[in-house]
């Protein structure tokens, strides 16, 4: 598993997120936070070390950590995710 930054991007399906905060609390790089709508959102995407903790531990299958080569396949999802969850 790579630990290099900037090779991954974290996506969240807000519809499925229940805002439990596990991902926020345990992310080693503080990539995520709970937004004003109570759902997780990405704040420091570039800090992601691709440890996968958030994805494995999301009880609602709402987080996807995508490595760059795969990103193209997820363009649509990414757009949707950004619409609902604008990054700052």
């Amino acid at each position, binding site marked *: 598993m790579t630990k290099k930054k900037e090779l991954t991007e974290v996506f969240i399906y807000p519809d499925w997120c229940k805002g439990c905060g596990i991902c926020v609390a345990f992310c080693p790089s503080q990539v995520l936070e709970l937004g004003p709508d109570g759902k997780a959102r990405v704040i420091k995407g570039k800090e992601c070390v691709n440890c996968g903790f958030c994805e*494995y531990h999301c*009880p609602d299958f709402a987080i996807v950590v995508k490595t760059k080569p795969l990103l193209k396949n997820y363009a649509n999802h990414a757009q949707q995710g950004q619409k609902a969850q604008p990054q700052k």
Partner: protein
Amino acid sequence: MAEVTQLIHHYLRHNKKFPHVLCPGCGHGIVLGSLVRSIHQLGLTKDEVVLVAGIGCSGRIAVYTDFNTVHTTHGRALTFATGIKMANPGLKVIVIMGDGDALSIGGNHFIHAARRNIGVTALILNNNIYGMTGGQSSSTTPQDSVSMTTPFGQMEKSFDIVELAKAAGAHYVARSTVLHVKLLDRIIVTALERPGFNLVEALTPCHTQFGRKNKFKTVVDMYKWYKKNALPLDALAKLPEAQRNARVPIGIFVQEEAHSLEDRYVMLRSRLQEGAS
């Protein structure tokens, strides 16, 4: 990572509404993810997997997965699974139960399934409480902790599922928490690979019904508690003995080989047919 969640999505029922019914932070979803990853890792087809669930929060899990799923009566999931496995040993039968389900109302079936070594993998999601009915004490509610039916603290001792399974003769007994998800994946994979009765206990937090009443401010605090207190067996062995009691050992406790009941049955059948011819 993305391929992981993508594959989980592949195993979910696309015509079911998500998110699932479980509370925010409930560890049951993590176990479900772990189970799906394990099934995928072993290359099992959706058709050969039968997921049998009991009643309670854990019982609601099966319906979301695109396997053969059977949602049974309270506490009796193992009996259904026994019938299914004996009727068709080619199926991979996995039983998901809660702690109240498996050990209180279903305690009898649990010890006998372990004793007869029927080829099913029993996954007990232990959240120390009856979640679905609103937080009453179960047989694994720790002594002195508060629940709706033990407002002054639980007076009874609680079951240690691992010890119980060992005593009942289970040949594979393992425990993890939902925080230690890599370990959970590993022990579920091993359990699914093995013949006979395999027990996996997954400690999963229930903040809504248990944590709130027992000094956990948020569900995250419960995960932090696991992080602090759940220790792999080898790490636990290094601790001074005085400190061990407060910790929860995780890992593989028993791993032995033995013929499963359905295998023995096949042997009996061929013996009888040889005798007849």
